[in-house]
């Protein structure tokens, strides 16, 4: 099992899902299988993290020819970037399955397992065609889950997210194909491996267009302002597990993509786009946060919140210094935990009240103190309260921004304020005051506390002892940054 550990981690959920599908397993067995697969992958990843060498580059590499004539290879490996993504994915799955325990619809479980394979594959792929394949694979379950198990205008909204993301995917695919073809032109062999394509050299204009293909896909996934109108409807309509994956993992894949492929393939060209993206990100930071203030639907509110913070993360990447980069990477992790937490809380709220509208809530703190505690905790960690990991990340990004330019710094620091307003006003109207809903509100039960507790503990640990986590990525991140800066410097 440990020989091809990465492949096992990717495909275990899919294989279990397929076996279950073939034998027509009843839902009780199915969910046990799903939970089992998530726990096993978690342990595999923990084993991996333990054996991972933070000073080594790409590790646990597996490479096998796939469609040789076209140069497609099955090429996977792990470095600091994918390790963090992988840890997040596998950490979140068991709580999600615990959350879903009473779910009777089989399709739900199959989709989640397929989704896990899709996102895991995407973060481990080192071949661009393989990456593209997984990138699209993870879209399918989301489409189904919103369209079939969602609420509200679910079919319209699922169509909207699919069309907009596919627009991005297509442009990325075009860039990938062109890169592969040019590699064939120059070397006479087909290859889509990242390390091969990174050796290509074009004139600046071609690079700009090729980078645009990738950036469009990632900008839609994050989403940056202007590419975002799918976000709130999709978050609003999607069932909770899908929302958690979308905000905690998939949105971060856009960031991951910029790092892995953007900086991997055309770091000098990214500098051409940096001013635009920095401006878009700074606008997004405030635009989404202000929009969130008057939002009545909690899921949509935190969709905007997520957009605001992801803009901040995207900003950090384009401020090429170690503080901003570490901050962005750290934020990927802590924001994933916090937003998973808050969306799970919203899901639990929905289970009890059958509503996620703030105007129909109130006075929860009096009825259900445990619920109120967890809800407030996650909301405050979204707001970047010191003592939670989000603060560390925001601090690093703010320092990085000031390092770059004082004005960028000032605008970045508004993150201290932007989340505050909607979070605190929301808490006031949901948790406090007198209840305007007479529904009997049961407090969290043991299962729910258990599924939330790991997130709380991790958020606090990342907040009070970041030095436990930073050594995992810091050495390689600095090297990566030096390479990028070197390339950028050389091009000037």
């Amino acid at each position, binding site marked *: 099992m440990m020989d091809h550990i990465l492949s096992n981690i990717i495909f275990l959920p899919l294989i279990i899902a397929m076996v279950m599908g073939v034998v027509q397993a009843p839902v009780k067995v199915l969910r046990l299988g799903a939970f089992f697969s998530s726990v096993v992958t978690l342990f595999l990843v923990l084993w991996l993290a333990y054996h991972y060498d933070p000073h080594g580059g790409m590790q646990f590499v597996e490479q096998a020819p796939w469609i040789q004539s076209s140069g497609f290879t099955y090429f996977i490996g792990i470095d600091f970037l994918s390790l963090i993504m992988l840890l997040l994915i596998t950490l979140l799955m068991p709580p999600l399955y615990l959350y879903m325990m009473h779910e009777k619809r089989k399709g739900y479980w199959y989709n989640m397992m397929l989704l896990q394979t899709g996102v895991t594959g995407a973060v481990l792929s080192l071949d661009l065609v393989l990456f593209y394949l997984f990138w699209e694979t993870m879209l399918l379950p989301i489409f189904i889950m919103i369209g079939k198990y969602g609420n509200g205008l679910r079919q319209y909204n699922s169509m909207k997210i699919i069309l*907009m993301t596919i627009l991005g995917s297509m442009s990325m695919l075009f860039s990938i194909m062109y890169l592969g073809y040019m590699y064939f032109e120059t070397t006479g062999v087909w290859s889509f491996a990242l390390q091969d394509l990174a050796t290509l050299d074009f004139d600046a204009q071609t690079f700009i267009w090729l980078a645009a293909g990738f950036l469009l896909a990632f900008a839609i996934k994050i989403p940056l302002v202007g590419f975002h109108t799918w976000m709130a409807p999709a978050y609003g309509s999607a069932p909770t597990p899908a929302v958690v994956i979308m905000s905690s993992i998939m949105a971060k894949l856009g960031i991951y993509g910029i790092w892995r492929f953007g900086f991997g393939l055309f770091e000098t060209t990214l500098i051409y786009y940096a001013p635009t993206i920095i401006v878009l990100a700074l606008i997004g930071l405030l635009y989404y946060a202000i929009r969130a203030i008057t939002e009545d639907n909690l899921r949509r509110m935190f969709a905007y919140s997520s957009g605001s913070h992801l803009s901040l993360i995207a900003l950090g990447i384009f401020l090429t210094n170690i503080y901003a980069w*570490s901050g962005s990477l750290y934020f990927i992790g802590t924001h994933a935990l916090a937003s998973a937490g808050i969306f799970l809380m919203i899901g639990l709220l929905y289970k009890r009240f059958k509503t996620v509208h703030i105007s129909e809530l109130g006075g929860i703190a009096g009825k259900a103190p445990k619920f109120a505690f967890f809800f407030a905790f996650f909301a405050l960690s979204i707001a970047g309260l010191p003592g939670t990991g989000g603060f560390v990340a925001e601090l690093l990004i703010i320092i990085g921004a000031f390092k770059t330019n004082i004005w960028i710094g000032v605008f970045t620091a508004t993150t201290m304020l932007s989340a505050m307003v909607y979070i605190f006003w929301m808490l006031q109207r949901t948790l406090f005051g007198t209840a305007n809903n007479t529904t009997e509100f049961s407090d969290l039960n043991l299962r729910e506390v258990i599924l939330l507790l790991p997130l709380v503990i991790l958020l606090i640990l990342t907040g009070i002892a970041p030095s436990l986590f930073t050594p995992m990525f810091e050495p390689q991140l600095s090297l990566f940054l030096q390479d990028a800066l070197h390339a950028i410097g050389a091009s000037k």
Partner: protein
Amino acid sequence: MLSIIVVLPFFSALLLGIVYLGNTKAKRYTFYTIIGVGTPMIMTLLSFIVTYQVINGSDTLHTTLLQWIAIGDLNISIAFMADRLSVVMISFITFIGTLIHIYAAGYMKEDEAYGKFFAYFNLFMGSMLLLVLSDNPIMMFVGWELVGLCSYLLIGFYHHDTANITAANKAFILNRVGDFGFIMALALLFVHGAEGGFTFEAIATHISAIDPEMLSLIGILLFVGAMGKSAQIPLYVWLPDAMAGPTPVSALIHAATMVTAGVYMVARYSFIYVEIPDVGIFIASIGAASALFAAIIACYQSDIKKILAYSTMSQLGYMFIAVGLGAYSAGIFHVFTHAFFKALLFMGAGAVIIALHHEQNIFKMGGLKKHLKLVYITMFIATLAISGIPPFAGFFSKDAILVTAFTSEHYIIWGMGTLTALLTAFYMFRMLFSVFHAQAKEEHKLQALPKTMTQPLVVLAIGAASAGFLGLNEAYGGHALINTFLSLPDMKLHVSHATEYMLGGLNVILALLGMGLAYTLFAKNAEEAKENTRFKSLVIHTFYIDELYDILIVKPLLKISRLIENIIDPKIFDGFINLNIWGYLQSAEMFGTLQNGKVRYYALYILVGLSAISCYMLIKLEVL
């Protein structure tokens, strides 16, 4: 030892929190009290030991708990430093904190959420000590934010009433506006002056590397943080509303400790401020303006806690005058004495409120002198202290500040401070006489007060009466013990004894004047202020500042939010996308009509296509 002082309350808060959440209905009065009150007692003991060590060893104590982060040059540890400034702070914070905890055990006894209260209260103590003892700006900021969080939680403690939560939100958000400045200052400080590391001591030694303009900017931004936390103009509006919290909270957080953190901060960063005296004058001006402004409002308030809140803001203004003009130890001295008499005033007010079954309007009280003798005497001492009547504590600390302003020739600031002194005596005695002397409007059925609530008052009254002697300066026959001990980079001023006596005498005369005026107006028959003149109604409505904030900030923000919701997102962004979809559908329909199933049309298309290809080839072959 230092680490224990800070970490212990966090653990006790965690323990209390878990036990409370485990079963919120259970009454565990004894358990909560032992943990909740025992913790600050241990902290006090440890703080005194630390203070003793620093006094005798005269060295700064350092402890590192753990490395927090190490990225690039940013190397931050959770590390503590007990220097002279911080031991003065921790000794009175833990001591007064303990007294207020004991008081709270009586005050909150009947509350359902007694356990939660002490969890928050202990969390506050830990955060406050983190703020004070931290050896680097980042950890200080963490403590700074956490005390803000505790303040939020405790202001909104009675969360069934939305008004309290609004007050809590206001406090937190306005504090965050200040923190916005604070964090920018820290980032700039790090970017420009962290060659030697990012602890206070390291920054202080490298401060000359930063150019003066940048340093001024950093100084101003830091002070913005202080404005938020210490309720100075224009970020003060949260403090009066913060009185929505239980009275022990007002005493501990919004009078004695947290709100003085801004003053502590300026003193802590005195190594920056001595380089930029112009920013200091700005700070002093804001302080003077806040002192006077708050004192004017306090003269017309009717709610006992609001009067004390404005009074706190006013006294904080004095402290900023001091630290702004470079008299750091005078500022800290006033922080120290103020903690005693203001905590005492709040606790006394709380006792009155409880005795009168939650009545807070001073004009509905009256005649309590006989019934609440102990409360009356202790509050009287505190009032004398805050009004600046010697030999009580407030006189010496306030006098030191006004003397500084006068001798450094900032006469306007001095004038505002002196006028404030007059007003202070007036509104404080107005409150005291209305509550205790004036004729009662109705018969009161008083609720008995537990011993835990009255005994701490006595201890504080002793402090309020005598704490001033620690800072007695030469003119009054002392050696300014506390000032020498603090050894902050104070501005050196030469004051003749004659000036001191003159200014001190003037202050006493003004205080007595204010007292006398209050006596004639309120001692017999106290009446609420009426809105019969423009000025009065302006003051009673606290200058409509809240409404101004609403119009300038809150409303526009909501408008923009709605604008995005209704126009920008659906019409512009989605509009663009939908336009494309519409175009796509239109073209689909257009091309659909071409596909009409008639062979002769298809033949035509083939012909057109073939001709196009031929033309293209002919061009390519350069025939045409």
